[in-house]
Every structure is written in structure tokens, then in C-alpha cells.
């Protein structure tokens, strides 16, 4: 195959140059393939965080204003087990990023490619190491004097609080997978007593605006006036 075209589709496409692949192939995998060399300390990370991230995510990554919190909800024990225990608690109000993320590569990859939200691709690799180190320190995963680098990141992975919290034991990765639930094809007398388990709460009736204005004003299916109670 020549640089300029294939035999099958002459004239179409060209080989990428090495510089082009370097420019675009920025993804970082769980095995750290793609991770550029570099390093950054928690302290450096904190400085960048406070100037570039905290406005949206809060000084401690706790803010719920712009997005769900980054840090919180993980324990020293989780770091040992690799399972965030509070995830099994059904009353846990919120799941932070650190409670869910199983791989440190994910944080590195995403922050480098997409943050800050309003200025993506503006961080250097060293910036990114530093910020990831800072976020990990918020979760007590690394100490406050830690310097994260391409050489020690694999060790850090072993401390991610939810590293053992993911399962692929399900039938949804492929159309050939086996469903975990299947319905019933019963046609008659299927339910002895039909019970309504949940209804639209009163406060939600008009929470999406007046439904009358979200349907046609003609035809058989008008919207009900949700600014008022249902008609008698």
C-alpha cells in the first residue's frame, strides 16, 4: 500500500505522519499505554486546581453546583479493599467520582483531554500529573507530599478505592449475551390485583412547565393544564 492510496480505493485517504499520530493519539489506557512521561506534586496540583478547577468543582472537589462532586465518600478501608463500601448502602445520597472510578488512567486521560471544561486541551502532562495527584490526595489515596509520575502511577492504581468495584459479568456487552431479566407473555388474568406503586408526585405536576403548552392545541390528544389541579 502506497502512502497516497490503496489498490482497492485508489485516490482515497493517505497514511498518517508520525507527528499527526502523536498529535491526536492522546488516549491513556488502564495499562498506561499512551501515557506521556512527566510528573507533578499534590502541592503543584492544588495550585492549578484552585485557579482552574475549584470555581466549578469546589476547593475540595465537593461542589454540587456545576457537576456532581469529585471527591468524598471513600475511606482508608476502601483503599485497602478496592471496594467502596458505602456503595452498598442504599441510603448513600450521592456517588462522587472517586467512589466510582476504578482506574487512575481514567482520571488522567479525561482531565488531560477535556478539562477545564471551558478550556479543554490547555493542560500540560505535568499539570495533569499534579492535578490527579491532588485529587487522589483529597481521597487520602496518596499522601499530601506525593509526586505522581509515569513511573509510580501503576503503584497508585493498586490503591484506587473502587478498583475492584466493577463487573463485566452480565449479558450486555454483546447482542449474544444472556439477559438477566425476562418478562412474561401471559395474556389473560395475569395480575390478580393491579396495585399502583408510584404516582407522579403533586410537586412534579407542573415542574416541567405547563404540559398544555407541550402538546398540540388541536387534535384528540391535548395537554392537560398542569398549572391547575386535574379537572373534576
Amino acid at each position, binding site marked *: *500500500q502506497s502512502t497516497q492510496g490503496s489498490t482497492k480505493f485508489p*485516490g*482515497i*485517504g*493517505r497514511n*498518517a505522519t508520525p507527528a*499527526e*499520530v502523536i498529535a*491526536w493519539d492522546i*488516549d491513556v489506557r*488502564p495499562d498506561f499505554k499512551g501515557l506521556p512521561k512527566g510528573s507533578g506534586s499534590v502541592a503543584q496540583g492544588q495550585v492549578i486546581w484552585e485557579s482552574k478547577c475549584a470555581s466549578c468543582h469546589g476547593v475540595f472537589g465537593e461542589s454540587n453546583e456545576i*457537576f456532581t462532586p469529585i471527591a468524598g465518600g471513600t475511606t482508608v478501608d476502601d483503599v485497602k479493599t478496592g*471496594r467502596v463500601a458505602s456503595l*452498598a448502602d*442504599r441510603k448513600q445520597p450521592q456517588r462522587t467520582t472517586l467512589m466510582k472510578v*476504578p*482506574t487512575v488512567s*481514567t482520571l488522567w486521560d*479525561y482531565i488531560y483531554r*477535556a478539562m477545564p471544561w471551558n478550556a*479543554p*486541551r490547555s493542560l500540560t502532562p505535568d499539570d495533569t500529573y499534579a492535578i490527579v495527584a491532588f485529587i487522589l490526595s483529597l481521597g487520602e489515596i496518596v499522601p499530601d507530599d506525593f509526586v505522581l509520575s509515569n513511573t509510580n502511577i501503576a503503584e497508585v492504581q493498586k490503591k484506587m478505592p473502587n478498583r475492584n468495584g*466493577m*463487573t*463485566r459479568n*452480565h*449479558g*450486555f456487552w*454483546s*447482542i*449474544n*449475551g444472556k*439477559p*438477566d*431479566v425476562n*418478562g*412474561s407473555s401471559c*395474556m*389473560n*388474568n*395475569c*395480575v390478580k390485583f*393491579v*396495585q*399502583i*406503586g408510584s404516582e407522579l*408526585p403533586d410537586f*412534579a405536576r407542573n*415542574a*416541567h*412547565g405547563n404540559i398544555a403548552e*407541550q*402538546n*398540540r392545541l388541536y387534535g*384528540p*390528544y391535548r*395537554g*392537560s393544564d*398542569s398549572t391547575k389541579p386535574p*379537572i373534576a
Partner: protein
Amino acid sequence: AAGLAAPMAFAAGEGDPAILEKQEWQTTLGKNVATMPYGVPSIYEANLIRRESPGLTRVSAASVAFTPLQGLFGTITPNGLHFERHHQGWYNLNPETHRLMINGLVKNARVFTMNDLMRLPSVSRTHFIECGANTGLEWGNVAVPTVQYTHGMLSCCEFTGVPLKVLLQECGADLKKGKFLLAEGGDGSGMTRTINLEACLEDTIVAWGMNGEMLRPENGFPLRLVVPGVQGVSWVKWLRRLEVGDMPWNTKDEAVHYIELMPDGMHRQYASIQECKSVITTPSGGQQLLDKGFYNVSGMAWSGRGKIKRVDVSFDGGNNWRTARLETPVLTKSITRFNIDWVWDGSPAILQSRAIDDTGYIQPSIKMLRDVRGNRSIYHNNAIQSWKLDSNGEVSNVQVG
């Protein structure tokens, strides 16, 4: 009581003024052709637009705009009403400078312009796209009033593009070792998703066309990946790069989101398939029937695993069911429209639909799903939807069982 709109009755010699009196459009000259070189809907359709769900997300550039399914017909979603989901907003990318790079486990990493891609052998196929989080608000309890918000992250279009397989072969991809594909978008989020090549190689399309014209900017203009049957987030928009690899990437949107929390605290990861599902769109939540009598009850059914084989409808909350008519053609991984006759006698009713696909899978109840998955899954809620019709003619969102 029903009868909000009693039929007009007239004595002989009288009649409906809409007939007896001449209308403006019968007695004057209308507008020119091409008054709108690219047309828009009638002014009387202004209520049917994409809408956000207040409070669902905190910022509107990382949010959802839902399709108004309550007013749509058939199977095709008009492009202007295709649902939107962005993670870092949308742009009108310049197609002249847009590039697609293919790298990784390939003989030659290659670059294609839009000029190149649009010269390759193309296919045109109709598929549904559903966000994995569609109906996600309802895992716990009834939360939103209408089908726009319960099911409106669903669209169905005819896509045109080059089969993924053609492109990968062209680059000499090693498909023995390379069972995984990273798809990367050109927006600020650089959206990245791992595609299962074993399952998706045959029908995935690198698409530029949607319902006859170019993709809309909000839907990935000029290039998006079409991965039939798989959740919408994997249909990467503004597609810029494909990398063949030997393991999944665990990107942010497959390691922190689009994961399903099970009762034991484990998250299911890489749950991609959108299982068989259906919903009645008319009448549906928030609608108001004006009268008793005959109704055509209509809805949509789809399955990420194949074709719809049957749809049953219940009017008594799932106790008794009748099989609906399916509009043809029934296509794989596409929307099928169903319709069924019904005479409303004015008493309360609970309407449900239940789809069965050609693998034999039957759409489950929300209780069956919760029994296995709990209620914190967020994603992949394909439960039977219940609409309660009150004797006042108002339809509302309920869950039974």
C-alpha cells in the same frame, strides 16, 4: 366525566360555520413556492419542540434535550426534533478541515478527509438511537409527567455512511488481536468510547447522512459513528479518530458514567445493549382526552438485539393483553410503530405496552427489573410503562406492582 367536547349537532339548513363560511385560504391568493427555501413546521406545531428536564443537569452544555414523542407519528424522527445529549456543548465543525484518523493495530495509520470518505462505498440503513440513560429518572419512582421526559432520549433515522469494516480493512486492521475499537470525538469533551468489534463490526457505520441530508451539528456533523443496538453514548459524534486495540479503554464515560450500580455495591461496566422496549405515545402522560369513544392507541417498540416480533397492549394495568398491529417494514434495531383499536367507555384505565423481540426476549415490568438490579442503576431501564387514564380524561404517569 368525559364529554369535554360534545360533537356538534345541527338542524337541517344549518351547519358548521367552518364549512358554511368561506375561509381566507379559499378566497385569496396563497404564498409563493420557495418562500422558505428550507422549510419549517406549521405555526400550529410550535408546542412540539425539544425540551430540557429542569433540574436533571446543572449546566445546559452538559445536558439533554428530549424529543417530543407525544406528538410524533410513524418511525422516523424529524432531524429538527432528534434528541440532543452533549457533554461539552456542540459546534458547527468545519467539514473542510475535518479529518478522520485510524490508528492502533493497523498496518497503516491513515487519514481521511470528508472528500475521501464520501467517495467510499456507502450504505443507508434505518436504526434507532437511545441514550443508555433513557427512562433512567424512573428507576426509583415516577418522577416526570410526560413521555417526552420518560422516553424522549430516543430517535430513529435513516443513516448513510461507509461501513466501519470497509475502513478498517482499508487500513489493514488486525482483527484477530484487535477486538476493541476506541472511537473519539472532535468536540471539547473528546468523547471516547470502546466499541466491541466482535459484536459490532458487521453493522457499524461511519455516517455522514441522517434522514437524507447531512447530520445536524447537534448530532455530530459532519461525521458520527452509528452502532446499531448499542446505547447512544457510543455513537460518537464529530468523530475524529478510531483506534484498534486489544483491551477496553475504561474512559470516563465507561468507568464513571454509563455504569450500573447493583444492590451489592458493584457496578456493571460495559453494559452496552439497549434491550427490547416499548412505550405508548398516544395517549400518554399529561395528555387529556376530550371525549369517550373510539381511539387508535399508538406507540413505538424497539430492540437492540434484533427485530420486534410482537407488541401486546393492556388497558387494565397488565391483567389482560391484546396483540397490536405492527406497521411494516419491521427492521432490525429500528423503531416499529404499533397501533391498536380501543373504545374508551369513560371509566379509569391503565394502559401498558409490552414488546417481544425475535430472540424471544419479553419486555419486563419495573418490579422484575428492580428485583434483580435494585433501583440505583440509572441506565438501561426498559420497563413496561404504565399510563393511568382517569375518568376526567387526564392521562398520568404511574407505576404498578
